[in-house]
């Protein structure tokens, strides 16, 4: 298990390699990416701001809870901070498991928990030059 708040692009292939192990039969990766439109407004980039030590503690706790609940320790979670361009990953969750259903259930549970518990905020920068702290999206 590893969780991190990072200020550089997330290396998806490295995350996949990190959770790969010969006793696993399934790997589920979820990536949240920056969309070009939110609530009908044209977005240029999103700036993520974290309360880093608490965010890392909370992400670690989510990973530990997922490990206990779904039965795997092959879990890596990374969340970006700073400016993230359109199409780039803001968060990535990789879970490997012996079987596919718990691998997929775990990655879903983790992103849902992350979105309600981890102290990270985003400010959308719009094409029209304005910017705004925005709430959670689905």
């Amino acid at each position, binding site marked *: 298990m590893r969780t991190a708040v990072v200020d550089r692009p997330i290396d998806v292939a490295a995350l996949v390699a990190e959770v790969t192990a010969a006793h696993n039969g399934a790997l589920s990766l979820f990536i949240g990416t920056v969309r070009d439109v939110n609530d009908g407004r044209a977005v240029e980039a999103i700036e993520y*701001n974290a309360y880093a030590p*608490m965010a890392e503690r909370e992400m670690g706790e989510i990973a530990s809870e997922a490990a206990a609940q779904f039965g795997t320790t092959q879990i890596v979670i990374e969340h970006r901070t700073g400016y993230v361009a359109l199409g780039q990953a803001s968060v990535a969750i990789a879970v490997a498991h012996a079987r596919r259903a718990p691998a997929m259930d775990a990655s879903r549970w983790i992103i849902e928990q992350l*979105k309600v518990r981890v*102290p*990270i*905020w985003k400010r959308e920068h719009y094409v029209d030059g304005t910017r705004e702290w925005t709430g959670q999206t689905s």
Partner: protein
Amino acid sequence: MNLDVLLFASYADAIGAPAVRVSVPDDARVADVVLAVRALSAGATLPERPLVAVNHRYAKPDQLVKPTDEVALIPPVAGG
């Protein structure tokens, strides 16, 4: 005691600073710290019952606060 309270995102913008110093009684609880922050200039623009973290964990309003605690007001999170 004096406490530095961390602010983030929209709360930091509302107050105009990433942290504020407040003075609270020595037996203060989380709710008292919130009251003290909201009594500051522009503090009333914050919600009445924001989420609060003490030492990187979410804390209930009745939790006692020590001078060495790291206290932060947590706006609605939006990660992911």
